[in-house]
């Protein structure tokens, strides 16, 4: 757990009335958000609720989008996309090291691959890896830069259910070891509860619900219904 004093003094991400719009349609409508250093935040929302827009804004990837507001983010930011986005023409290790140089970096790249369970696959081509392995390599690529903030845009959305469970455990483990702040965009309520310390629900460009998850409590069911209610989903009780 991150120390409270640090939380109070310097949040890793700070948004103040962040607004973004496409073709006159407001997607983000004045968002205020602080993410303390080392916090694992999940961002839930329907398709089109603006969660990817928010993530892209924090990542600095929204070049041609009109908007206003203030945004502070750390220098070292890594992004994990829904697709692994490995360059098919570079071997796995070269993909992990994309943009880095030197023996030191290579050493760290090998370590990162070992950490995600891909030791021995350094010389493989991305196409030779399974979907889960590709996403592990993508995680290694984001880790090797020792990010202060890890942004993940539905990183497990394209994986099968069993692989996804393994990846959840891996991500949580990596986070516990390296302690970056994490902003994970997902549409999977259970994924959000399993992984995050804090779950935000984005609704019509605003944060509709900000829920702190007490990981020790056995209140998963309650979190689940509250989050689903905030998303406008009602479950039949049998």
């Amino acid at each position, binding site marked *: 757990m991150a120390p409270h004093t640090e939380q109070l003094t310097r949040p890793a991400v700070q948004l103040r009335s962040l607004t973004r719009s496409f073709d006159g349609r407001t997607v983000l409508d004045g968002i205020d958000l602080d993410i303390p250093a080392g916090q694992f935040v999940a961002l839930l929302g329907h398709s089109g609720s603006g969660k990817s827009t928010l993530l892209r804004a924090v990542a600095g990837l929204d070049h041609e989008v009109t908007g206003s507001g203030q945004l502070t983010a750390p220098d070292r930011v*890594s*992004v994990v*996309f829904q697709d692994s*986005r490995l*360059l098919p*023409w*570079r071997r796995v290790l070269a993909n992990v090291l994309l*943009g880095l140089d030197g023996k030191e970096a290579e050493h760290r790249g090998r370590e990162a691959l070992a950490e995600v369970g891909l030791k021995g696959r350094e010389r493989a*081509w991305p196409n030779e890896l399974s979907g889960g392995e590709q996403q592990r390599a993508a995680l290694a*690529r984001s880790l090797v830069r020792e990010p202060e903030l890890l942004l993940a845009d539905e990183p497990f959305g394209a994986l099968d259910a069993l692989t996804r469970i393994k990846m959840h455990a891996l991500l949580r483990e990596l986070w516990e070891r390296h302690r970056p702040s994490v902003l994970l965009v997902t549409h999977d309520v259970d994924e959000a509860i399993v992984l995050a310390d804090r779950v935000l629900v984005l609704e019509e460009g605003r944060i509709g619900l900000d829920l702190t998850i007490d990981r020790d409590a056995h209140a998963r069911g309650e979190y689940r219904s509250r989050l689903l209610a905030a998303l406008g989903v009602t479950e039949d009780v049998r």
Partner: protein
Amino acid sequence: MTTTTLDKAADVVVADERPRKRRRGLAPGKRLPAARLTGPLLVLVLWAVASAAEALDAAAIPAPWTVVETGVQLWTDGTLITDILTSLQRAASGFAIGLTAGIVLALASGLTRTGEALIDGTVNLNRAIPTLGLIPLFILWLGIGETFKIAIIAIVVYIPIYLNTHAALSGIDNRFVELAEVQGLSKLRFIREIVIPGALPGFFVGLRLGVTGSWLGLVVLEQINATSGLGYMMFQAQNYGQSDVILVGLVVYGIFGLASDSTVRIIERRVLSWRRTLSS
């Protein structure tokens, strides 16, 4: 078709009491050994048999062994090698210039908006004019020497290389551009790590078209406006009714074409080795 030699499979058939018919395969099936050589060899055999039976007019279509004899003779008296070297030099110079121009223009046009505005339309206009139609003008400008031949071959070569490389450059997946931004790549590094490797498959398509084009240009140029080279040798042979010499020339052109195409293929397979995992 319904019975199988495996015992297990036979058991299943009995248990089902209904023979399980294997579906009729719609694929053409296994490839015959040396399939690509079968057709050409058959033609060669037919040609030899017909010549031996004297069913062919030897003045129009000489026997295969006559062609070989003529080839050996031309080779030993040194005229063939001189003509081959002259032709090769023309093709190689034109090809090298065309290749360089194609790559440089494609990069300039694919990577900068100014370059695109200046170059892309111009090249497409150039493409609309059949290059061999430029021959008269180029003779007026450059004279009838080597320069104009090399210039025409260079134009024939650069167009497909430019077009395919440029298309590949502009078709680079935007997701990879985003990745490069996230990873903080410099412009130069982005070009080296993503743009060039990503455009290579398209470049190789253009390269192969360019190689074929250089031979085509060479043949045309040598047969109408030359005083040396393979095409000239064949043109002279036509005047003297030496069909065997013409056939020797064609065989040499064929060898050139095959050899250059195979070379490009081998290079392509090496450079694009990461693709093998996709096709296999």
